[in-house]
C-alpha cells in the first residue's frame, strides 16, 4: 500500500515553464548609520550658509560656528563644568528620589488592590499638572536652594515612573506567579524572585521617559535661584537674547539626553540579557 521511491522526479504536466514571481521583501527597516550623520551635517551646513549669506537673519538662528565657538569658550574657561556640575547633581539627586519613590509606590499599587484604588486616580490627576505652574509653591515648600530643585525634578519623574511601574507589575506573566504558588513559594519570595525581575523591563523603559522628563525639567528647576547650572545658563542666555549661548546650552541638554538614553540601553543590555 505504500511505496518508497527515490528523490528523482519528472514533471507531470506539460506547458510553458516560468519562474514564480518574487513578491516578498520590504517592511523590514535596515540600519543605515551614515544617513543620520549626513542629515545632521547637511542641516548644520545649511544653517551656517544661510546665516553667512544673510538669508537667515541673526535674529532667527545663530551661526553654528559661533555656537561651536561659544562651546569651546565654555570648555576652555572651565565654566562648562561649573555649570554642568550642579546640574548633574540636581539631576542625579532629584531623579533618584523621584524614581525610587515612583518605583516603590508603583510596586505597591501593583501588589495591593486597596493602594491601587486609592492612589491611581490621584496619580492620574497629578500627571497633567504642569510643574512650572507650581514653582511659587515649591519655593515656599522647599526653599529656593537645592531643595526645591530636587523636589521639582523628583516630582516630575515620580508620576511617569509610578505609571510605568505598576503597568510593568500588572504585565508580569501571571502563569509565572501561579507556578511560584504551586511550588509553595512564600509571598515575599514570589514578589522578590518573580514579580520584581519580571517587571524590570517595563520599569527600565519607564525610567527612560522619566529621565528625559528630568532633563527637560532641569530648566524649570533652575528658574529658581540657581546661579550655576545648564538650565540657569540657558535661561540667562534667553533673557539676554544671546542665541549662541542659548543654543550651546540646548545642545548640551540634548547631548545629555542622548547619553542618558544610551546609558539606559547599556543597562538594559546588561540586566535584561535574558530577553529574547
Amino acid at each position, binding site marked *: *500500500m505504500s*511505496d518508497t*521511491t527515490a528523490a528523482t522526479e519528472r514533471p507531470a504536466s506539460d506547458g510553458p515553464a516560468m519562474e514564480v514571481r518574487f513578491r516578498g521583501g520590504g517592511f523590514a527597516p535596515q540600519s543605515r548609520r551614515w544617513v543620520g550623520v549626513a542629515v545632521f551635517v547637511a542641516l548644520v551646513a545649511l544653517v551656517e550658509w544661510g546665516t553667512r549669506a544673510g538669508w537667515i537673519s541673526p535674529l532667527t538662528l545663530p551661526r553654528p560656528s559661533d555656537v561651536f565657538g561659544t562651546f569651546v569658550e565654555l570648555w576652555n574657561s572651565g565654566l562648562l563644568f561649573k555649570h554642568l556640575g550642579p546640574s548633574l547633581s540636581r539631576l542625579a539627586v532629584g531623579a533618584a528620589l523621584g524614581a525610587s519613590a515612583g518605583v516603590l509606590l508603583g510596586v505597591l499599587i501593583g501588589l495591593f488592590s486597596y493602594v491601587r484604588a486609592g492612589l491611581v486616580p490621584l496619580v492620574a490627576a497629578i500627571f497633567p499638572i504642569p510643574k512650572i505652574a507650581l514653582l511659587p509653591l515649591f519655593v515656599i515648600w522647599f526653599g529656593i536652594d537645592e531643595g526645591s530643585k530636587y523636589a521639582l525634578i523628583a516630582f516630575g519623574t515620580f508620576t511617569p515612573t509610578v505609571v510605568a511601574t505598576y503597568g510593568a507589575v500588572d504585565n508580569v506573566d501571571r502563569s509565572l506567579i501561579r507556578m511560584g504558588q504551586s511550588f509553595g513559594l512564600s509571598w515575599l519570595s514570589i514578589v522578590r524572585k518573580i514579580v520584581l525581575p519580571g517587571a524590570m523591563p517595563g520599569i527600565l523603559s519607564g525610567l527612560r521617559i522619566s529621565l528625559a522628563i528630568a532633563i527637560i525639567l532641569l530648566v524649570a528647576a533652575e528658574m529658581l535661584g540657581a546661579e550655576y547650572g545648564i538650565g540657569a545658563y540657558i535661561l540667562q542666555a534667553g533673557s539676554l537674547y544671546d542665541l549662541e549661548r542659548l543654543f550651546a546650552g540646548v545642545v548640551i541638554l540634548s547631548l545629555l539626553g542622548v547619553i542618558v538614553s544610551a546609558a539606559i540601553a547599556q543597562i538594559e543590555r546588561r540586566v535584561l540579557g535574558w530577553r529574547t
Partner: protein
Amino acid sequence: MDIRLEAIRHAYGDTEVLQDISLAIPAGRIVCLVGPSGCGKSTLLRFIGGLERPMEGRVLQIGAPPEGCLNPLTFVFQDFALLPWRTVQGNISLVLEDHGIRGKRARAIIDDVLARTRLSDFASALPKQLSGGMKQRVAIARALAVNPAVMLMDEPLSALDSQTRELLMDDLITLWTRQPFTSVYVTHNLAEAVRLGHRIVVLSRRPGRICEVVEIEKPLAERLYADPDLDEVQRHLWEMMRDEARAAEEELIDV
C-alpha cells in the same frame, strides 16, 4: 498547473539551510514536507510562494493557472494571519478588493467559500470571538476565495489542539474529495502526513536535503482515524527521523 523545484540551495549568512532540493509537485495532489525543526521547510515553502528567493536554483510553474484564478500560489499560515480588526467576511474580502472584486460579486464568492468551510453563520464575527479551529477555517476560506492553483500550507494545524486538528483534517479531506486541489503541506506531524499526503517528502536536519519520498496509494477518503494500515508507514518515517529530530531538538539557540 505543476510546480518544479530545480537544485535549490540557500544559506542565511553562514548557516547553510537547504541543499540541492529538486522536487516536482504534480497538480491535484497533496505533497507533504516533513522534517526536523529548523531544517528549512518554511523557507522552502516561501521560495515556492515567491516570498523569498533562493540563492541558487529555480522554482518553476509549469502550465497556466486555471481559469478564474486570482492568486495562483496561495498560503495558509500556521498562525492564521487574520486581520483582527476585520470580521470574517472582511478578512475574505481583503484579498478580493485588490482584484477589483467588490459588492455583489464579492458577496457571492464569500458566501460560497464560507459555506464550503461551514462558517456561514459566522460571517460577521470578529477573529477574537472564534476558536482556533474556526480561525484556521476562515484562513482556508480566504485561500479558497482566490481560487488558487496551489495551496501552500505551513503547519496549518500545529497551533490547534489535537481534537480540533482531527476535526480540521476531516474538513480538509472533505474539501479535497469534493474538488481536488494541489497543495504543498508542511508539517512536523507524521500522523497528519500519512493522513493527508499523497506523497511525503522527508527532509534531513539542517542543512535540509531530501532523504526520501514516500508515496501512499490509499485514497484520502478511505483513510481512518488511527488507521492501522498507515501505522507501518508512520513508524517507518519515524524510525528514519527520530535521531535527527532529537539532535535538532537539542541544539542550543544562539541569540
